[in-house]
């Protein structure tokens, strides 16, 4: 059977064809879940955010004009949904303090990921690599994690990331620079010791 194009599936979804949108979910669930997981770093929260992303996308599909790729649009909703989730979880946090002051003030610290608390199933997956990466990601704000994932894991260009997140390209570049720097600070000691 011939694979239907995204455009065709989007057109059918706009006419209320749930099954067509289900095919979009089938194609891009992992990507959206990955971005959400990278931002919230909890399996269940990532699942909820990813699924919420698709439900929002389906409700808003009529507003999708098709000027960007569907994945760009889904990433944007996914990142915003994940950040909203973290904000709800930490309501005391101001909306945007990611001015990227590199000072580690208390507010920024409270944005960071909670310590990883593995359940029985997760225990099997724990490794030094995972804990190190998690430690490195904990050093970043959700916005930085989102930018880092879209750039390094999804391989998006700066322009695509800017479009996905609705920010200026300069902001994207500065966030990526900061995120890499922070990762380097956390991971470099292990790299120098030859642990990785």
């Amino acid at each position, binding site marked *: 059977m011939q694979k239907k194009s995204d455009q065709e599936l989007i057109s059918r979804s706009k006419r209320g064809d749930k099954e067509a949108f289900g095919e979009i979910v089938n194609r891009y669930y992992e990507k959206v879940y990955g971005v959400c997981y990278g931002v919230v770093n909890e399996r269940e929260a990532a699942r909820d955010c990813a699924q919420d992303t698709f439900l929002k996308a389906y409700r808003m599909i009529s507003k999708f004009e098709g000027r960007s790729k569907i994945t760009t649009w889904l990433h944007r909703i996914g990142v915003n949904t994940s950040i909203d989730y973290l904000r709800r979880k930490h309501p005391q946090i101001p909306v945007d303090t990611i001015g990227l002051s590199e000072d580690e003030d208390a507010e920024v610290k409270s944005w960071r990921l909670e310590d990883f608390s593995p359940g029985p199933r997760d225990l099997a997956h724990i490794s030094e690599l995972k804990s190190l990466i998690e430690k490195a990601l904990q050093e970043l704000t959700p916005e930085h994690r989102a930018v880092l*994932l879209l750039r390094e894991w999804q391989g998006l260009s700066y322009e695509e990331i800017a479009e996905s997140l609705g920010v200026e390209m300069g902001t994207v570049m500065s966030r990526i620079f900061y995120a890499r720097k922070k990762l380097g600070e956390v991971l470099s000691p292990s790299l120098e010791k030859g642990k990785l």
Partner: protein
Amino acid sequence: MKDDRIFKELLDKYMDGALRDPSVQRDKEEFIRDHFAPVPPSIANIASVSVPALALIALFFLVWQFFPTAQPIIKEEPAFERTTAALEQMAEESVVVQEKIEEKPEIEVDYPPVYVKRASSRTGNVMVYQKTMDQTPVTIIWVFPGGH
């Protein structure tokens, strides 16, 4: 730059590990099934299609049940009257055959009462004679095994 490449590789491995968890696929399939699966036909939809179909089938069986009794009144009766002479001639021929049957040893059998609603034969050793329904609602059937 070298560190950047290593970070990317580490991040890729980390994310791949997260996505390999079987729960991700399970959650995905469940989510699609719950929200975006094709809508199964509802009972109302089934009824809207099947009720007329069932009514037609029921009507067909109703007609089929009554057709044999109605048929002589509506269509067959004139035909019997027209062919009476031919039928009587055939009945006379049948007597010879009946005598041959009497030569066989008698077997006492308690036959149950038989009610014949309909009989027909296009070819073979059966003859049907029926009086017109308004005179005597009786149908007589002769069966001649081995006869002509």
